């Protein structure tokens, strides 16, 4: 559509709020981050003094819940160290550990959530409209709760020998009770379990809406031709639901890489035993606001968060490349 002059102005004003906020609260912090990542971690003596003072003030250990406000004073001794912070992060074993854990967490949860959500939405589709709505709303409730609530429940409910999970499932099946939160082998599975529990309902809702949107004639064709289960998936579900699947995957990848609250509450800000549950954002937070060790490494943390960006961008790029694969044939 061609635009008149007055319309150009009104298009501008419709776009301006988004663009302005983007510029001010996304692009500027990004530049701040790049700038910060190039600086010497110990660039300003005054800065360090104030941090050490704050550290001493907190009684025995750094207060995880209220990191004290630090006044950063402008000094002229800011020193740029080039890419040193990046190489420091890249040679940090813990960073790789966190990266590995986070990837495991993201892919693990997607692998469970998508099939489970699909199966549940198919099951819901068999039922009447009334009970469908009610049941899917029930499934949605874990995604409405605060992650910290989920973790608290998880902790008290699944923790230790007396936890419900052990009492109801593990022991009756004849296994030794699992210490879910203390055994390094089981920390990641329990984090994934929490994520599956949290998001499956939402994904089920998306898929159910997708199923309801499939045109009636396609079902009629299936009924007439009597096609098998796999054919049905390939010819009807995948083409119709592909966009929703992609949306769900993008949402889960972004949320997974940014996830913090669940693990933070479950493990109290640490990475758990042997850092088996250390996630990227938790580690960034640990480096920026360390507990006790006093190494307030803002530049290191900034470098690390910038290194996460190409990784998520690459994964999402790959995912979006498949966008047209199944779309309506």
């Amino acid at each position, binding site marked *: *559509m061609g*635009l008149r002059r*007055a*319309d150009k102005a*009104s*298009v501008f004003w*419709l*776009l301006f*709020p*988004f*663009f302005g*906020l983007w510029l001010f*609260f*996304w692009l*500027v*912090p990004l530049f*701040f*981050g790049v700038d910060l990542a190039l600086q010497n971690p110990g660039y300003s003596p005054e800065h360090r003094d104030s941090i050490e003072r704050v550290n001493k003030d907190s009684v025995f250990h750094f207060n995880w*819940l209220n990191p004290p*406000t*630090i006044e*950063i004073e402008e000094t002229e001794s800011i020193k740029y160290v080039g890419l040193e912070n990046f190489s420091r992060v890249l040679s940090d074993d813990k960073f790789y550990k966190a990266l590995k854990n986070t990837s495991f967490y993201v892919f693990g949860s997607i692998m469970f959530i998508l099939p489970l959500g699909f199966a*549940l939405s*198919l*099951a*819901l589709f*068999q*039922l009447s409209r009334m009970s469908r*709505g009610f*049941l899917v709303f*029930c499934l*949605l*409730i*874990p995604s*409405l*709760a*605060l992650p*910290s*609530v989920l973790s*608290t*429940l998880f902790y*008290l*409910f699944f923790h230790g020998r*007396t936890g*419900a999970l052990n*009492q109801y499932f593990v022991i009756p099946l004849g296994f030794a009770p699992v210490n879910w939160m203390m055994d390094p082998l089981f920390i990641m599975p329990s984090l994934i379990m929490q994520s599956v529990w949290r998001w499956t*309902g939402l994904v089920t*809702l*998306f898929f159910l*809406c997708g199923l*309801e*949107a499939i045109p009636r004639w396609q079902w009629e064709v299936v009924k007439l031709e009597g096609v098998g289960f796999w054919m049905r998936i390939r010819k009807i579900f995948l083409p119709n639901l592909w966009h929703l699947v992609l949306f769900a995957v993008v949402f889960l990848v*972004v949320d997974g890489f*940014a996830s913090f609250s669940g693990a*933070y509450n479950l493990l109290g800000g640490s990475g758990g035993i042997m850092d088996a549950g250390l996630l990227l954002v938790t580690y960034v937070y640990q480096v920026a*606001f360390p507990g006790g060790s006093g190494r307030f490494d*803002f530049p290191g943390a900034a470098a690390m*968060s910038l290194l996460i960006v190409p990784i*998520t961008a690459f994964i*999402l790029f790959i995912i979006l490349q498949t966008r047209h694969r199944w779309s309506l044939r």
Partner: protein
Amino acid sequence: MKRFFSTVTLSGAVLVCLYPFIWMFFSSFKTNREIYQPTLLIPENFELDSYLSLFSDQYLPFMSYFLNSAFISILQAVLAVMVTAAAGFVFAKHSFRGKSLIFAIAILVILIPKQALVVPLFDWMLWLGLQGSSWSLILPGIASGLGIVFFTQVFKKVPNELLELAKVEGFSVHGTFFLLLPLAVPALVTYGLLHFILSWQEHLLPLLLLDDDHITLPIALAKLRDSSHRIPESVGMAAATLTLLPVVVLFGICFRKMKTALVHLALS
């Protein structure tokens, strides 16, 4: 037969999803000793102490934290809906120079989440003097890439004839936008709720950006749990129940609209 299997599967799933929350609700009336037996569901006596202690600010000013959280999330959701719906409308129905650039920006916002920018954002907020206030959380939360993508899809479904008609009637572009808004109410409500819930659940940003007076619920809950040696567990459970209840009610009221919007969006 198929129906029977579906019902059984779904009952199992619903039980898994709901039981912990039912247990949480009953646990808010329990004593510590009862809570440490997770297989016990119904307490012997229903004690209201935990709720009373929250309402009377005995351990921390819970109600004011609740209001902080509500203020931040509601304002952020409303503003985000307004801002991203306007931009999404323009993307869906108008072409202009630099359009693909701005759309790429919206995608970039999705790719680089706020959580990855939290350290420089903290610095930037210090510099702006906003660090500590609720606005340090509200303002960066408004420009949401997900919202742009969502509303672009929504407005693409609006028939072009409607726009032509509005043009003939002499409506300007933004006039047309306001004209179309009532049509898009289910979509507006849906995205508003999604944004609301994401902001209601946000933990890392408020942890760093807010000062003690503006703390939000996720941090308040972590606080209650952190000092759980002194505070009875039932208080944490009561607080958790109180954070969940309003959200469930809100979603329950709007659920039908939400489903309409999502089905409409899935129609190809």
